[in-house]
């Protein structure tokens, strides 16, 4: 059979069918860049929450300690930092108790880095599922941001406990009214990591090298963010370099609000916000563009 035309049975009348004026959906090769399908995401909002639930349940099933691991991980990291950076390397903490200083940085940084790392492999990790069924792909990174937010909530509670302990003890901690900015900081951070994660996720479907690069890059980025050192210990000449990193301002502002040392400026916060918005938009557009055809390249 090499015929190209469609053989229909002779005598079958051409179906007299009326076309609807408006189709529910039209599948085409190219769609507008800004067609983000956010409406679809909203329709699938239950799915986002179910993914979040799945994340939690599957991570801690068959572990003895279960969700206690949320506490253990930042606590151990803090202890290690206190020993290595505080006691051995004797890095400055702006006169703050080392534990609460490192814990504040780690709590914030963990949220950012975990969300970014998790979203950056989302397309590749779920290629099997994405290759079999359609649902708005954005639901997946969104669910990661939310489940990490819950994790952050627990770790933040841990931080608050340690923080209160030091306040009661009468350490040199001076919280101020900027604490009310915390939700804003968390949102900026979440959106920034989501945006970056989606960009990386889209790129790694094609160039897997980026996944390696990112794992390494995250470590470097942590050192380019005032997590284990205060901004004040950086020579003024290089301060702009550190502050060019949108995460720096967030960590500093968080510390300033809760601990009273560090720096805060509306200018830098606006800068972080602007970068975040740009990254988020770019991320969503790139992610959407790639998700339409990535099952062919993975």
């Amino acid at each position: 059979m090499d015929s190209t035309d469609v053989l229909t049975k002779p005598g079958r009348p051409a179906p007299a069918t009326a076309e609807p004026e408006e189709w529910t959906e039209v599948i085409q090769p190219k769609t507008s860049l800004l067609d983000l399908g956010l409406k679809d995401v909203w329709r699938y909002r239950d799915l986002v929450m179910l993914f979040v639930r799945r994340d939690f349940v599957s991570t801690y099933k068959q572990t003895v300690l279960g969700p206690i691991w949320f506490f253990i991980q930042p606590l151990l990291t803090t202890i290690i930092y206190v020993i290595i950076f505080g006691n051995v390397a004797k890095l400055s903490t702006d006169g703050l108790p080392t534990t609460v200083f490192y814990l504040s940085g780690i709590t914030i940084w963990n949220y950012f880095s975990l969300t970014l790392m998790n979203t950056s492999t989302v397309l590749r990790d779920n290629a099997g599922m994405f290759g079999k069924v359609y649902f708005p792909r954005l639901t997946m990174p969104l669910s990661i941001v939310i489940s990490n937010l819950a994790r952050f909530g627990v770790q933040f509670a841990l931080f608050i406990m340690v923080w209160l302990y030091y306040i009661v003890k009468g350490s040199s901690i001076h919280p101020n009214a900027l604490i009310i900015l915390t939700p804003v900081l968390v949102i900026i951070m979440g959106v920034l990591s989501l945006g970056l994660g989606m960009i990386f996720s889209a790129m790694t479907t094609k160039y897997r090298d980026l996944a390696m690069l990112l794992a390494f890059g995250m470590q470097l980025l942590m050192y380019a963010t005032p997590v284990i050192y205060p901004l004040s210990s950086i020579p003024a000449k290089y301060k702009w370099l550190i502050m060019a990193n949108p995460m720096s301002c967030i960590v500093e502002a968080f510390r300033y609000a809760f601990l009273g040392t560090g720096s805060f400026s509306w200018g830098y916060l606006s800068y972080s916000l602007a970068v975040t918005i740009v990254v988020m938009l770019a991320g969503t557009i790139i992610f959407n563009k790639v998700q339409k055809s990535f099952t062919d390249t993975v």
Partner: protein
Amino acid sequence: MSDIAIKVENLGKLYRLGEIGTGTLGQDLSRWWARTRGKEDPFATIGETNDRTKKGGSNYVWSLKDVNFEVKQGEVLGIIGRNGAGKSTLLKILSKVTGPSRGSIKINGRIASLLEVGTGFHPELTGRENVFLNGAILGMNKAEIQSKFDEIVDFSGVERYIDTPVKRYSSGMYVRLAFAVAAFLEPEILIVDEVLAVGDAEFQKKCLGRMKDVSRNDGRTILFVSHSMPALKNICTTGILMETGKVSFSGSADEVIDYYITNFLSFNTDTRIKITDKNREYDLLRQIEYDSIEFVNPVEKNMYSTEDDIAILITLKSKIDREDFRIAFSIFKMDESAVGTFFSQETLSIRKGETKDFVITLKDHQLAKGQYYLDFSVGIGNELIGATEYDVVTKTLFFEIAYKDTSKTQMMVLWHSGWGAVNFHNVDIKAI
């Protein structure tokens, strides 16, 4: 109100062959370099000129090309074709898993696709949790799933284990639960791919029945891809045949299936077949295996009359000593539906290293006019005590049953497919 559910226009899908990943950065760079100099994309041109799906010609292949068809509301469209004809690609584009390279699909109604059952099932989650997760992935919201939850569990028949993690399920239970979720989706258009190839026979029947229900009673549109001709015949109303990325035939389901059977399922008139791996679907131990099968006293074109006995010589080779094995054969119609099966007594014997011939004669076969083929097996045991098959070979010899003298002695010259495959003729009628 319109009655078109899906309209596919000039649909095309271009695939790049070979290794994707290594070297793409280089390709991308040279593509970008060509574009900045205002030249044509050096890689796309290969695809553009490659209008025919030629193998080996270039790195690009049109997996689908110029596909046009319409599906009306309430229609159950069967999609038939050999492996690689583009069926799966078509379904993938329809279910929005991947995008087309050309053309468009217009859809009227909510669409849900089942290219696989149990997508997104997580082994650590319980059956209940997975029903919700899977349902949501397939497009239902929580309230919808909640309202159908009891029905889903009931249909799946795994009620007892619904709060057990699915990793503890048997594969059958897993599939039952997964299909049950899908069965209670309520989209206007449902796309189903071969998912019925799983589960036991009883459950498959239930699934087919459910699909039939959904289309007949609720007037929903279904697109169904399967290799099982009986299943297609059973539930489809119309069909299209796909071949090398194009629609080569369309019509009613029966017409398309008949066309496919006559043109693609290779009826042959070999009178002897040397058994090869091509005849084996299962990977069995083959302590005793088929070596060759042939017709004794072959007839022209393997065309037997309704009165002929059919005698077959089979040659078995053995690696073991066995005193009490049996052989069995089944006769199938060309649409792969079984007509009947014979089991021998467990009295045959063979020695280690021996090659032994057996002659089987089927007397008074009662088969109706038509084309058939034979499957064989060799084994021990039965359903009650547990059966072991040593070797199963399929589609070995093909033959046709025809009427000997159509003009005088036979009343019926035609045999309607709706009458089945057996033409009883050992029947007595007496007036009393």
